[in-house]
Structures are given as structure tokens and as C-alpha cells.
């Protein structure tokens, strides 16, 4: 007769075995690798056109004169923040392109509600997104180095760690990453990435899909040079939908695999162009799915930006620009003048511009199809003393905390 201790051990043994079986089955259902189709790591990218070379079609870009040095992609590190509808596809594209190293950040778990988007599969439900993504991506391309972090970057402790990894998580440990990609779905996380990148002087690209799923955008942010995420109210692609017909009852957000796939595609395209130096790198590219319209533009950093580090980076950029030899580009703006106006007709607005501006706020000069989510009136800095503000207090923070607790 076995003792209780012996039985306990046996149960433990069986539990471990079950866990192993589960793991084996889990990786097996991922497809090819159940048949042992793990390919070995490839030390050097080959341009040889054979069926067994996963990089032959990419290296062909060199022969066609599109990219000068494709192999360089293996020296780059990209951090993808947010591994959801856009981020997972972005990471997969970069993995297939043979990027050197990927850092993945996300605190979410895979859910069945994500299945209308690409990449994740139903059997991965319950796993953390970064863990599930790493598993799939490693199978696709074992040459890529992965580093995953399962946390929310906007809280204090995690943010410090996030900054440390951005500045030291490059392929050569200790070097910064080459590019940060924001594939998050909320304003708070975008502002956190913006704050980190401004402080570190880290170049990054922002991407987004609207909550109604029919527009999106990508944006390149070079701290101090191009507008940062805090330089202006959030930019949105006008979808030309009558607000009155847009129903929001009972839902927070809609999503489509198509729009997310398109945005991930234009994002990674811009990444490849930026890293491998070909074509024109977009500063801002919008996608309006309703009209199939792609507005693009470029916006300079705002000298009055609320982010102190953005202003510091701007100062550095100005100094660098002064030192650089000048290339004179004369751009003449043509004024529209009608040949003759014999009746002296002039357009006079019924509201003065000042009146309009006071009611809303200044709208940056934006091309057709791009607008701001909201405006901020300028007077907010000037008003203040006459408003009812919190009184000065002799009480310490601890006393105030205790007072609140007693209420």
C-alpha cells in the first residue's frame, strides 16, 4: 500500500507529463513543425534562386536595382509596441523580411474576439499576445532574435524598463534599437511612447486605425524635426461620414482585418524604405477606406509643444541646421489674383477669424482629408488666477490622505 507522500509524488509526475503532452500538441497544431520542418538558422543571406532559399525573392530586390544592400536588414532592431491587429501583422512582415531583432511589447492576452483580425489563431486563446506571437514568428523565421515583454508600458515601473530596453535593447546589447513602431490602440500608450522617444531622441513611427475601422494612418516622428505626437491635437483622417449617421450605441470600437492589414502594410513599407534607404519615406500617410483616398503631408515640430523634451530636441535640431551648409530652395507661393474685378467684389466672412478661433482653437494648416480630432483654445494659458483653484495648504500629503480615508 502506497503512502500519501508517494501518491502525491505520483500525481505530480503525471501532472508534469500531461503538461509536456499539452505543450507538444500545442506546437504541433501550429502547422508544419509537427512534421519536424524546423529549418536550421541561416548564417548569411544568399541571393541564390533555389526553392530552399527563404530569402531569394528578397535578395532579388538588389538585382532589380530597388535596394542597394538588402542584407543590411539583418543588422537592424525594431521594437513593436502593441501586438494586436496591426502590430502582429507588422511583426510577421518584418520577420519574413529577415529583420535582425524584434522586441515585442503588449500586456494583453489572445481572445476569441480577436479572430476577425489576422495572425492569431483560436488555439492560442488565453496565451499572452507576445508569447503566442514569438512562438509563431520563431517558426516562420528562426534567424530573427526575439525579446518579449508582457506588460503595460504606461505605468511607472514598466515605463522605466521600457525606456531602458529602447535605449539598450539593440542587436548588440547596449546599443539602442533602430526604430520603434507604435501599433497600440489608445491615446495613453501613444503619449507614453512619445514621451520616451522624445526623451531618448529615438526615431519612431506611429500607426493607427480609427475606432470605426474605415480609416487609418502612419506617421514618422524624428524628435525635434518632425511634429511629435504631442505637438498638435491627434490628427485624424476625415472619413467623410456624417457624424449624425454614425451609431455608437453599445460599442466601443469596430475593427476590420482589411483596414488593419492595409495600415500594417504601409507601415512596414515605410520601415523598409527608411531602414534600407529606397524610395521616399512618408512623414504622414493617411488611408480613407470609404473613398480610397490616401492623403499625405509633412508637419514640423511645434515650438510651443507641451513636451519639454520635444522642445529640447528642437533646439538641438536648430543648432545642427545652422551648422549645415545651406541649400537655397526658393519656393514662391503664387497668390490667386483674378485678372479683373471691375465690380470690386470681395469675400467677407460673417464671423471674424478671431471670433472663430476663440470659440474653437487654432487648426494647423493641413491638407485635404486630414484634420485634428479636436482643437485646444489658445487662451488657456492666460486665464487662471480669477478661477477657483485649490487653496494653499499647511497640511502634509499624509494628513490629506488620512483625511480622505476618514470621509
Amino acid at each position, binding site marked *: 500500500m502506497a503512502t500519501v507522500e508517494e501518491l502525491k509524488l505520483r500525481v505530480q509526475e503525471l501532472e508534469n507529463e500531461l503538461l509536456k503532452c499539452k505543450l507538444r500538441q500545442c506546437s504541433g497544431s501550429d502547422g508544419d513543425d509537427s512534421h519536424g520542418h524546423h529549418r536550421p538558422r541561416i548564417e548569411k543571406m544568399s541571393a541564390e534562386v533555389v526553392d530552399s532559399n527563404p530569402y531569394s525573392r528578397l535578395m532579388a530586390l538588389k538585382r532589380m536595382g530597388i535596394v542597394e544592400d538588402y542584407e543590411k536588414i539583418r543588422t537592424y532592431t525594431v521594437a513593436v509596441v502593441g501586438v494586436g491587429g496591426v502590430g502582429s501583422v507588422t511583426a510577421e512582415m518584418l520577420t519574413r523580411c529577415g529583420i535582425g531583432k524584434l522586441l515585442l511589447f503588449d500586456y494583453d492576452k489572445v481572445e476569441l474576439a480577436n479572430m476577425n483580425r489576422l495572425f492569431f489563431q483560436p488555439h492560442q486563446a488565453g496565451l499572452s499576445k507576445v508569447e503566442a506571437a514569438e512562438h509563431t514568428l520563431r517558426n516562420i523565421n528562426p534567424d530573427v532574435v526575439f525579446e518579449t515583454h508582457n506588460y503595460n508600458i504606461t505605468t511607472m515601473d514598466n515605463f522605466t524598463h521600457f525606456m531602458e530596453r529602447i535605449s539598450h535593447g539593440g542587436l548588440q546589447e547596449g546599443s539602442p534599437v533602430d526604430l520603434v513602431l507604435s501599433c497600440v490602440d*489608445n*491615446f495613453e500608450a501613444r*503619449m507614453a511612447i512619445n514621451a520616451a522617444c522624445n526623451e531618448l531622441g529615438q526615431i519612431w513611427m506611429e500607426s493607427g486605425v480609427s475606432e470605426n475601422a474605415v480609416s487609418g494612418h502612419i506617421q514618422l516622428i524624428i524628435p525635434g524635426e518632425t511634429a511629435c505626437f504631442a505637438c498638435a491635437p491627434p490628427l485624424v483622417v476625415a472619413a467623410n461620414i456624417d457624424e449624425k449617421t454614425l451609431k455608437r450605441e453599445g460599442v466601443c470600437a469596430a475593427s476590420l482585418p482589411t483596414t488593419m492589414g492595409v495600415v500594417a502594410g504601409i507601415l512596414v513599407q515605410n520601415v523598409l524604405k527608411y531602414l534600407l534607404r529606397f524610395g521616399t519615406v512618408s512623414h504622414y500617410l493617411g488611408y480613407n477606406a470609404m473613398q480610397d483616398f490616401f492623403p499625405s503631408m509633412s508637419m514640423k515640430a511645434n515650438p510651443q509643444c507641451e513636451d519639454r523634451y520635444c522642445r529640447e530636441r528642437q533646439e538641438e535640431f536648430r543648432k545642427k541646421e545652422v551648422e549645415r551648409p545651406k541649400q537655397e530652395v526658393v519656393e514662391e507661393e503664387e497668390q490667386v489674383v483674378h485678372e479683373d474685378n471691375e465690380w470690386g467684389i470681395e469675400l467677407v466672412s460673417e464671423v471674424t477669424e478671431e471670433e472663430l478661433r476663440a470659440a474653437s482653437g487654432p487648426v494647423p494648416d493641413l491638407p485635404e482629408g486630414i484634420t485634428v480630432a479636436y482643437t485646444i*483654445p489658445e487662451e488657456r494659458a492666460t486665464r487662471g488666477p480669477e478661477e477657483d483653484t485649490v487653496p494653499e495648504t499647511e497640511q502634509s*500629503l499624509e494628513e490629506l490622505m488620512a483625511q480622505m480615508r476618514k470621509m
Partner: protein
Amino acid sequence: MADEATRKAVSEIPLLKTNSGPRDKELWVQRLKEEYLALIKYVENNKKADNDWFRLESNKEGTRWFGKCWYIHDLLKYEFDLEFDIPVTYPATAPEVAIPELDGKTAKMYRGGKICLTDHFKPLWARNVPKFGLAHLMALGLGPWLAVEVPDLIAKGLVQHKEQQSS
């Protein structure tokens, strides 16, 4: 935007002065004091108006907040635990208030039970940085959310009244 009662309640919350977030050491303590002063005043106002509806407290760094909020419906009190972290970008971005026990019960929520605020909230907050604080977040964010969602959750039978809570 908000209804008349909310507007009045908000106008009586003192505005904050210090534009500082949890990453700014001393200035953050100053901001925290202002947060507590505004919250205390708001709770006092609510009590006076016989509309006391939440309590909040924080860890000693003031970076993590938790508490209770309640809603009276058909003379019955429904109480919920609430929590949120102060984002590193506060006060430029408002915290995301969560009621974890309601996660999955309403579509007006993001994962983890974070409440989904109206389109009006973000612009309103952005226009009032750094004057708005946590008391304003309660009054303009959580308050209106509870007023819309709780009666609906009760009607759908997704929230039941706990006997011992009868008030």
C-alpha cells in the same frame, strides 16, 4: 456635453495648478496634495448635496488608486470596486478607470474592465490640462458612465443587488 447637474458639480470642484506627473519627484507631491484637496472638496460637496457616490485612496506614491463607487437605482444601492493607475504621461492623459467586476458584462468597456468614455471626454480633458484632476475625472468620466450603464446592466439582469447592501 454633460447635463446641467454634472456641469454644476464640476464647476464647484477647485481647479489644480501644478502641471506635473508621477515622474517629477517633488512637484508630483505638490500635485498629489492638490489632487487630494480637490477630491476632499468634491466629496464634501457631494455629501452636502446628498449625492455621495464614491471613495478613493491611493498608495503612498499616489501612482495607484483604488476605492468604491455606488449607484442608487429604485432605492437600492449597487456598489462596485474601482481602480486605476496614474499613467506616466499624466496629467496630459487622463487615467483609465476600471471596474474589474463588470468586465465582459457591457460593450462599453475595454479589456480589464476599463470604462469606455464618450467622445466628448478626451477633448474636454485635453482643453483643461493641467487644471482638471482626478475629481474631475470622477465627475465627468465615471459618474456619467455609471448613470448610463448601471440601470442598463440591472435591466438585463447582469448586475444583481446584494442583499446586505440595502440602504
